[in-house]
């Protein structure tokens, strides 16, 4: 059947893997958006830029930091970056939330979107100013270089890509677990339903909101570090991705945490499959799906009509 269409099973498997990787990024970014949207009612338009920023900080840590401080041998390697960058980004998010976003909660949602759009332009512009748009490469850590040959089915699996899928799935599902199955998560969910009532129970809701934003931004930073060895680290990497993620969010409906994870993965795979069977459409397939879903279920696949 595959030969009939001029595609080998190996080619198909390779494209599916690429799709799965893209899907993991869609999942992790739309998860971050969903968490932020849930508590702040703000579409974090700077999510893409924060993802770019994560990748850049990792790259700067690896190649530049040592020279800045006069220790050319010093560098922050991939594994440290994987922990450090999300923390730095979360701190950055905390500052943004406390100093600026906080002032907008009593206003229309639109202003939050416009403010974060402004952040996105500033971040993107700065990196473009400092590093140009040509892009920098970030080598995968030694442990994850090379491939796993699967001779029985005739394909090779690059180790790093496999790691990306596993790492993002672990992060996504543990986030899901915390939100849906623990006490902390129940506070979060109560906060999205009725913040005033929760406050009456003595929970510090403003702090919770700040931390939720910080966590969402941290997730974007984490995705950025994961992405650095796969894609070129360049200032536009986030703004190109984020629009697709928005489409994913519309399709999934952001009704549930699981919904955003599953929709992200599924759309990555569908995009990968389209690349095999009809490459010209791979850039628009997600938007076409979005149009169809809007016609049939305006609230999205997992969404509830409000």
């Amino acid at each position: 059947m595959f030969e009939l269409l001029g595609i080998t099973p190996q080619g198909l498997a390779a494209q599916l893997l690429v799709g799965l990787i893209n899907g993991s990024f869609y999942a992790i970014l739309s998860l971050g958006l969903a968490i932020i949207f849930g508590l702040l009612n703000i579409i974090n338009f700077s999510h893409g830029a924060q993802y770019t920023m994560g990748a850049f900080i990792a790259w700067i840590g690896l190649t530049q930091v040592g020279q800045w401080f006069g220790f050319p041998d010093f560098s922050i390697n991939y594994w440290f970056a994987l922990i450090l960058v999300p923390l730095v980004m979360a701190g950055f998010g905390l500052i943004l939330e406390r100093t600026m976003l906080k002032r907008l909660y009593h206003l229309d949602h639109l202003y939050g979107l416009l403010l974060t759009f402004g952040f996105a332009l500033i971040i993107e512009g700065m990196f473009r100013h400092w590093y140009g748009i040509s892009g920098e490469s970030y080598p995968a850590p030694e442990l994850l270089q090379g491939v796993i040959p699967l001779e029985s089915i005739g394909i090779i699996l690059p180790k790093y890509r496999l790691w990306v899928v596993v790492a993002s799935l672990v992060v996504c599902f543990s986030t899901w677990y915390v939100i849906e199955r623990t006490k902390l998560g129940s506070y979060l969910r109560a906060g999205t339903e009725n913040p005033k009532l929760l406050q009456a129970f003595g929970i510090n809701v403003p702090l919770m909101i700040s931390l939720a934003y910080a966590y969402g931004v941290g997730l974007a930073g984490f995705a950025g570090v994961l992405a650095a060895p796969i894609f070129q680290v360049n200032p536009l990497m986030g703004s190109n991705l984020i629009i697709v993620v928005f489409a994913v969010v519309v399709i999934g409906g952001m009704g549930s945490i699981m919904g955003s994870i599953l929709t992200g993965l599924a759309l990555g795979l569908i995009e990968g499959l389209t690349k095999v069977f009809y490459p010209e459409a791979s850039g628009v397939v997600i938007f076409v799906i979005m149009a169809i879903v809007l016609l049939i279920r305006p609230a999205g696949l997992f969404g509830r009509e409000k």
Partner: protein
Amino acid sequence: MSSKIKLLYGILVLIALLLPFQDFIYLVFAMKVLCFALFACAFNLLLGFTGLLSFGHAAFFGTSAYITAYLCKEAGLSPEFGIVLGVLGSGFLGFLIGSLAIRRQGIYFAMVTLALSQMVYFLAVQLPFTGGEDGIQGVPRGMLFGLIDLKDDVSMYYFVLAIFLLGFALIVRTVHSPFGQVLKAIRENEPRAVSLGYDVDRFKLISFVISAALAGLAGSLKTLVFQLATLTDVHWHMSGEVVLMTLLGGMGTILGPVVGAGIVVGLQNYLANIGSWSTIATGFIFVVCVLAFRRGVVGEITHFFKNKN
């Protein structure tokens, strides 16, 4: 309209008419401002008066720009037909995107329009007649009605000014009509408008189509002025820019978008030679506008005088 405001408009039109007789302001720059002012006014009809934030208006601006460029260059059509067909094209696209987008509200609406306009961007990159990365260049300005040669900047300027004033008058008329009142009602309180018996979706869609068509008109004019249509016209940064113009000038005010367009275009001209700083500056203005003066320049001025009385 009070007589003071009529006087203000009269003075503004007079200044615009006299613009070719001076050496301080470059005429092509003035035309650019007028094109973007029309674009921003069209956008403001939707955001300021209907309360719908479209983040995909570049799609209409760009589609019309491409259609006009293609028809005038490859098919040799005269500029008036190029513009009319461009406007019809973007109006139709507005109908398609609008029918989908009004099914969701608030920020979802913004995301849907953004995603669909990105789809238009992909098409502009891939379709055979758009010239891909290069766009369509060297579009002839042509002879208007076969009589007036638009190659001359002065006659082109008066043509752009006439179209701008027509578009502007149409928007003012729409806003002050009973139809416009319904739009405002939807903006202020949609459930109440529904309960009053208005078919809210239809009103939203009509306002979306008018806005898209006028945005297209601005795109067509821009193509004729600069004689090119490129990917910049359909890129989502353009959608962001028009949001900025409206926000900066004052959304929901009649003159706001014009002032906003003047400031943004002026700033870009001024900042053009320092590259990516213009993106940073744009972002910075966004942040300041949202945090400090949400009414925009014109909105704040009106507010000041209202408080004084």
